[in-house]
């Protein structure tokens, strides 16, 4: 009888221990129901091939809307992402694509620009305004290119987005999210946590 009681007590203890470890929360924010970018494509500016905004099988795709003349936000964000990827053992499962919101100036240079941060990243862009708007919609990404004052001014949303192999938006990282937090989130996502 004592053994049975002890067994029940051990069961309780082990269940409690399993729960007590806790699980870190995502640093990125979660939108429910999650929007999807499945079926949405943009041209790869280097190859011209259409790229669907979904990750490869069992991979994750990190997307960023920006422009190469950005003086601060874009390089900072891309540098943070670069550092975050370096911290991962399985970074080969993370795909990265930068989408230009300033295609008139960027289509020729975007590929080299993004690859200077992340050599495996893809550069996506189009002068088709409606195609860009369709691509931005699920993420809530916004942008405005204003050249009315003689000088080109670009405003854009500054978040990073990560989608899975079905195009489901898993997390959004606001500008300034620490690279350690991004890499921790990616590690958790790659382990299957949702």
């Amino acid at each position, binding site marked *: *009888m004592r053994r049975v009681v002890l067994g029940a007590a051990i*069961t309780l203890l082990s*269940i409690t221990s399993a729960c007590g470890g806790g699980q870190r929360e995502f*640093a990125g924010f979660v*939108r*429910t*129901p999650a929007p999807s970018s499945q079926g949405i494509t943009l041209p790869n500016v280097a190859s011209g091939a259409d790229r669907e905004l979904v990750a490869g099988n069992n991979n994750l795709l990190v997307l960023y809307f920006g422009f190469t003349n950005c003086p601060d936000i874009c390089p900072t964000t891309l540098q943070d992402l670069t550092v975050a990827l370096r911290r991962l053992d399985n970074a080969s499962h993370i795909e990265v694509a930068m989408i230009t919101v300033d295609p008139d100036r960027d289509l020729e240079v975007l590929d080299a620009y993004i690859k200077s941060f992340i050599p495996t990243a893809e550069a996506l862009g189009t002068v088709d305004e409606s195609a860009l708007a369709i691509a931005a919609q699920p993420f809530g990404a916004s942008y405005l290119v204003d050249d009315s004052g003689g000088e080109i001014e670009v405003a854009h949303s500054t978040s990073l987005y990560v989608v899975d192999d079905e195009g489901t938006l898993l997390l959004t990282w606001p500008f300034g999210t620490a690279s350690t*937090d991004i890499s921790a989130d990616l590690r958790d996502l790659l382990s299957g946590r949702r």
Partner: protein
Amino acid sequence: MKKLLIALIAAAAVTATTIIVFTGDDAISRTSSITTLADYEYEIPPGTGGRTDAGEELDIFPLLLEVRVGESIRIVNNDDRDHLIGAFFVGAGETLTQEFVSSGVLTGECSIRPGSSFTLRVSE
């Protein structure tokens, strides 16, 4: 003794059931976004976009929200429009959830209060 044993096993079973519900990977994200109360809860009610268009000043969000690491926010957008609340984009009909894991300051425009911004300050 037998009664005690049955009670213990029953308690273990109930505990196990409860813990499984709250520790499964899927269960965690779903319960945290649907049933668990966040520290800061906001609702964007239906008609908010229209009322903003009409020039009404809505006091749904503060200009500055100061929170601590470990606390959480949930924004339920019951409007038929997307809204931007500082760094948070919340689509129409969506719920946004986030627990703050690091300190920092996030500032961005607020679609509910045109011309002003929403700042979130997270401290340790």
